[in-house]
């Protein structure tokens, strides 16, 4: 038996999480280093996955299959296609930056009980999320996927509810700072509960659909079911298929998040630390869009086609509504959250446009959005940690005091608005082209999202970084070495993938073609050709 590479990629961070959690209370620094080293080792394993993956080869590679729960028809089945490889690489890439950026986020303020170890908990939870996200990208068994799709909510929940920005809310007077901390803690637990309930309800509805799928198909193997669907041995009644599709899609739409199920995201991102916010939007939420591609389209091709018009409308609303609300935000992190909702709208649009450009664009978008949001949000986090406020109005003229910080913030922002030359441009362009080929009107409306994106990012930059230096901003330190180490590679990647996206598209494209052939869609021919 060959080395179980995929299992190892997921188990390593899981073991790392346990080890990190077990570090004694006094050895906080050791826990941080341990978590960082584990995340880097995971990155190495993910790189091996990328190298070993052959884009021209079988659809699912590096497969592993073991009996697990026979009574439920569940097998421990792993396998990656190009899309999954890209997502695993993104996840493994971002986690070290998330850990490094959050180096001091969880230093204990006051020592309560001797056993209270927030630092160990924080980094252990991040690694636990990484493990679960990776395994849900790898799972080709619906049940296995579902288990980790749900289970990852728990560590996420503790990350959101347990850790927040330090000393935020300085619009309150210093005298009420203590009360402010309590209010912040209340808001945090509200955000955490909202996150959990939204996703849990989505997940439970999906559970009903998962059970329904089992009753119809008799097993949970994605490959088997998809094959049986393709060659006609498994015939689902139209209505059954539609209900099951809706059950799955609902859970993914909550996770993604798609309007109108998005309202947990701004709360969650606003209240959590910047690295955790990145973890939510750049890593965890990607499982939702990824699962739409992998499960909705493959298992329920006809229902997917049936639901496409409605989903496109929801995606459009997400794009425009998210962008409009981003323009109106006064809180930096909320702004990024709404921008993300807008971007997820683009991803869903690309997936359900059912063209190869659209879907490659959507996959590429997932990667690029992860990197660009990480860059923007982490720099925003550095900024917030200096001033102790998330409010845009509390800043001004930062670029004169901290030019490097302002510059990196600008690049992150420009990436968010898809400036040509930076990575997100390629993916957004592909999505729009792909959409336009099939649904011109939808494509045109979606384009307005880009205009709005320019508005909210540039206004954000203008208000915080330019203008006269505010009194509280004076003397603000520029990026430290640790922070530079976080930001610089992300920016390099943004530029590299903006100029040369081929490495990613090469991996992704064959998988996209496969998925499209599942839904029996061919790219629409250009009209001139069709006329001949």
């Amino acid at each position, binding site marked *: 038996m060959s080395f179980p590479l995929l299992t190892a990629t997921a188990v390593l961070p899981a073991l790392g999480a346990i080890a990190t959690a077990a570090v004694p209370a006094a050895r906080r620094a050791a826990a941080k280093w341990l978590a960082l080293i584990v995340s880097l080792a995971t990155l190495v394993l993910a790189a091996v996955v990328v190298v070993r993956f052959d884009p021209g080869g079988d659809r699912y590679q590096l497969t592993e299959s073991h009996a697990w729960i026979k009574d439920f028809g569940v097998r421990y089945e792993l396998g990656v296609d190009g899309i999954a490889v890209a997502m695993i690489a993104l996840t493994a890439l971002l986690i070290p930056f998330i850990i490094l950026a959050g180096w001091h986020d969880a230093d204990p303020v006051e020592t*309560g009980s001797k056993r209270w170890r927030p630092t160990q908990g924080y980094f252990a939870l991040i690694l636990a999320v990484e493990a679960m996200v990776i395994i849900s990208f790898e799972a080709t068994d619906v049940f296995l996927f579902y288990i980790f799709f749900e289970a990852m909510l728990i560590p996420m929940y503790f990350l959101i509810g347990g850790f927040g920005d330090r000393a935020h809310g300085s619009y309150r007077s210093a005298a009420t700072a203590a009360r402010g901390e309590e209010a912040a803690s209340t808001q945090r637990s509200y955000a955490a509960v909202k996150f959990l309930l939204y996703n849990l309800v989505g997940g439970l509805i999906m559970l009903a659909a998962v059970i329904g799928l089992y009753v119809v198909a008799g097993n949970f193997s994605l490959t088997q079911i998809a094959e049986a669907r393709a060659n006609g041995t498994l015939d689902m009644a139209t209505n059954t298929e539609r209900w099951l599709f809706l059950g799955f899609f609902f859970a993914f739409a909550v996770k993604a998040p798609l309007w109108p199920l998005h309202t947990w995201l701004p709360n969650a991102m606003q209240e959590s630390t910047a690295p955790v916010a990145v973890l939510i939007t750049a890593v965890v939420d990607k499982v939702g869009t990824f699962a739409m591609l992998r499960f909705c389209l493959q298992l329920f091709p006809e229902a997917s086609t049936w639901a496409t018009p409605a989903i496109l409308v929801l995606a459009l609303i997400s794009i425009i509504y998210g962008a409009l609300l981003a323009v109106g935000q006064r809180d930096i992190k909320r702004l990024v959250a709404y921008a993300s909702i807008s971007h997820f709208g683009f991803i869903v649009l690309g997936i359900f446009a059912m063209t190869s450009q659209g879907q490659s664009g959507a996959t590429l978008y997932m990667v690029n959005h992860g990197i660009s949001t990480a860059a923007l949000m982490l720099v925003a986090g550095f900024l917030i940690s200096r001033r102790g406020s998330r409010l845009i109005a509390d800043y001004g003229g930062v670029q004169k005091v901290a030019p490097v910080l302002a510059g990196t913030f600008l690049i992150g922002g420009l990436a968010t608005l898809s400036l040509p030359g930076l990575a997100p441009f390629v993916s957004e362009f592909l999505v729009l082209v792909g959409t336009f080929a099939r649904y011109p009107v939808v494509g045109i409306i979606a384009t307005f999202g880009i205009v709005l994106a320019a508005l909210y990012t540039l206004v954000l930059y203008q208000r915080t970084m330019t203008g006269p230096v505010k009194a509280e901003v004076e003397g603000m330190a520029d990026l430290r070495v640790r922070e530079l180490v976080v930001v610089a590679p992300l920016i390099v990647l943004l530029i590299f993938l903006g100029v040369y996206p081929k490495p990613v598209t090469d991996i992704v494209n064959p998988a996209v073609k496969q998925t499209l052939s599942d839904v029996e869609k061919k790219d629409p021919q250009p009209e001139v050709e069709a006329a001949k």
Partner: protein
Amino acid sequence: MSASAVHSLWTTAAEPIDKIGAPDIEYGQLSPTLIVIGAAILGVLVEAFVPRRTRYHAQVFLSVVALAAAFAAVIALAAGGYATTKSGIVAMGAVAVDGPALFLQGTILLAGILGVFTFAERRLDPAAHGNRVDSFAAQAASVPGSDSEKAAVKAGFTTTEVFPLLLFAVGGMLIFPAANDLLTLFIALEVFSLPLYLLCAVARRKRLMSQEAAVKYFLLGAFASAFTLFGIALLYGYAGSVRYGTIARVVDGTVGEVTPALAGTMGNDALLLIGAAMVVMGLLFKVGAVPFHMWTPDVYQGAPTPVTGFMAAATKVAAFGALLRLLYVVLPGLRWDWRPVMWAVAIVTMLGGAIVAITQTDIKRLLAYSSIAHAGFILAGVIATTPDGVSSVLFYLGAYSFVTIGAFAVVTLVRDAGGEATHLSKWAGLGRRSPLVAAVFAVFLLAFAGIPLTSGFAGKFAVFKAAAEGGAGAIVVVGVISSAIAAFFYIRVIVLMFFSEPRPEGPTVAVPSPLTMTAIGVGVAVTLVLGVAPQYFLDLASQAGVFVR
């Protein structure tokens, strides 16, 4: 007429005396129950003859050894093939020895052992007059607040009677799911109920509440028993027998002969329907299904917490076992009559338990309503009427009982000056003060909520799958919705523990003896193992899923 003539008339009318014979008792196959009941009687003798000083140790030792021996006997029977390849109806048709019976008996015995551990805990309550005390009243008979109570406390009395009582209850519970005729069912019901009523009344603290709980439990329980008994009488009138197999054959119409004395009533469907409904009602009362759940919150709250944990776990196992056997062995012919009713009961139980639980502010009441919701989930599996349904219920019961005992054991640890701090507000910030206890409790809550990788999820998935395959898709949808509602209040407790600031006057977490630690540790271990690798136990449950008829 002369005396001898009367005598001869009498002797000719009666059966010859030698035909009755001594009953045939298969001691080997009944050994689990016999061991436990025997030990319980021995325990009463220990109460009478062993000096007070050593009584506690003697009782704990006796109980654990007896339960372990009974468990070994169950294993031996199962290894002898009784669960899978053969089965027997023993004790002249009164008791069935088959897969479900042995599986449930094993579960009840394990729950009983963990129950003894929590009963025997003596480190949590502060010592009274230099004597270590447990959760039970110094002298149950003394009036609360009276001088005699004070004297009893000062003298260092403890109610070691709880151990024989527990053994009696376990003995009854062992018979209950194995009972193969209605009278045995009723007697088993009483044998395990009466000790439980008593156990509920003997709390050391909040004694009035405890006694009130016991009275409520007793009155409502007596009502339910009366219903059951009346139903049994009606079923006898219908079938001319209390034997499960015979009733089932009469229901199917395969038995033609009519007992002359019952010629007027036999085969009367009204008797069958009313009788069956009343017996099932009595069982649903024990299970705690809506609308027969009213006793649950008060009793769970008032009873000493170790008793609550034991009762919540073991009673549910026993009662569901009996319900399964009744519905699958006696009344499968009536399936189309009882299924719609049970659908309705399952739906209101799931929703009712979950919705009312949201408003609870006491952790024990919260767990009580949660247990009602879980009864609804289990009923979803009962309704399936497939072999998968039986095995899923068996699995769920096994998983659930360990979570329950563990969770209530954690509740005993969180204390303030007034004993256990069961009001939810007092649990605020527990995660800061004692992360380990809070984390363990969080694991139990997540299992209750059915989060993947815990036993709760595997169990819930099993019953929902069985229900869906049995054609009860609507039940699954309702189940999923009530799971979402239920998740809300489990999570609220987690929020409270981890994300709220600890209160300065908040409770302390007592460090328990290895006994309670074992109970909690086993609970956590089983919860996680059944969550991650449930296959072995699912196999066990599905092998054990066939009733003897």
